[in-house]
């Protein structure tokens, strides 16, 4: 690691936009609390993506602040709109979908991701206690797990590391990491750099990542 200041990468919105592009048309997707909830605002109806909220909705669109109905919220407590063909169900059904392999992709926030794809995203040791919500079930059950997060902490420490020192959400679960600096795939042989954000160099990604990153192959600039 360097002692210099970490570079400024993408805004949260642009991370969410890039994460939205990672979704396959026609897929069923769960969005975690925080940055991932922004992703719903960046998909087009023509993408035919169905968002699942673990509190019991399949088929909501963006957040709607105008008309609050306390019984119509997503898993982050935000009021949402429904799409035609939406359905409601209880928590048992919801987690049958999640653990049972019926969710094509989940986009969750992250605190740390390790080279073997372990995720830590629910417990900050300095705060203690924590809130786990549905994160562990989603990490285990979603067919594809995309982590959308800042590349480094506020203190400039890498979040992409050899091994997590924060308590784990699940082992060997992460497929792709999308940060303000890069798109990185988690492969059998560790981290593979796929894209860099505009204004961020391959060297900077390597410098601010706490584990080896394979940069062989075509590394392209993100198209946003």
């Amino acid at each position, binding site marked *: 690691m360097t002692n210099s200041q970490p570079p400024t990468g993408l805004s949260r919105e642009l991370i969410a936009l890039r994460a939205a592009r990672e979704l396959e048309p026609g897929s069923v997707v769960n969005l975690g609390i925080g940055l991932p909830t922004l992703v719903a605002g960046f998909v087009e109806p023509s993408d035919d993506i169905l968002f699942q909220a673990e*509190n019991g909705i399949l088929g909501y669109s963006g957040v709607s602040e105008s008309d609050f109905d*306390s019984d119509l*919220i997503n898993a982050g407590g935000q009021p949402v709109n429904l799409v035609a063909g939406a359905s409601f169900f209880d928590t048992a059904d919801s987690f049958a979908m999640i653990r049972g392999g019926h969710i094509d992709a989940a986009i969750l926030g992250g605190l740390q991701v390790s080279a073997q794809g372990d995720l830590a995203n629910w417990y900050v040791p300095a*705060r203690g206690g924590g809130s786990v919500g549905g994160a562990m079930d989603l990490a285990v059950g979603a067919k594809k797990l995309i982590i959308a997060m800042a590349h480094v902490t506020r203190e400039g420490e890498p979040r992409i590391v050899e091994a997590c020192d924060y308590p*784990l959400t699940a082992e060997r679960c992460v497929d792709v990491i999308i940060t303000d600096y890069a798109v990185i795939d988690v492969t059998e042989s560790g981290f593979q750099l796929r894209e860099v954000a505009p204004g961020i160099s391959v060297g900077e990604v390597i410098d601010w990542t706490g584990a080896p990153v394979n940069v062989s192959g075509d590394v392209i600039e993100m198209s946003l």
Partner: protein
Amino acid sequence: MLAEVFQTPDTAVADIANGATILVGGFVSAGTPSNLIRALCRTGQTELTAVANNIGLGDLLDELCEERQLAKVIATFAIRASGTRQSRFESQYRAGEVELELVPQGTLIERLRAGGAGLGGVLTKTGLGTMMAEGKETLEIDGEHWLLERPLRGDVALIKAWRADHHGNLQYRLAGLNFNPVMATAADLVIAEVEEIVEPGAIAPEQVGTPAVYVDRLVQCDPIPVRWEG
């Protein structure tokens, strides 16, 4: 057997005992029995264990901390990710005055389902290799590893539905189901707060979300609006 209709939430919860384990339905604002929670506060009963999705996120469950009525909370969301705001629950938890058992949401609902459905436990991959597996048994079945989670039941369940009929059949609206239908199966005494009580038949059989067999008591109340404070 007809469900017993109570005129006020206070009379519906009056015989809840000190030390009871209470299942509380709802997901922050949706399907939350806020009138029953407030009435439980007014009973003054203490040493309670609350089982709920969340506490201290704008929900009224946190009000049970005001007079220190909770000994233990079993929940999925209990401590905010950011430390800028602290619920009453969080400050009492930090002071060691109340116990917290944090459970993954999918595991919590399946433990309750097992408790209500006469099953001996749940085998899940959720939590394997994490703090959640500490002190728990793991099983290998046909080469796959599973974490054994135990059933969970309450002495009382406080649930919220949109409408009930006099038999106790419940109908939910929108995303108000969440934990309510499963919690209704998993307690010795089930008390439902509803917005309207109608004659049997007014809720079409296929619209019944919780069949009457699970429901003991009904109370009609205007819902108290709450909002997530993240």
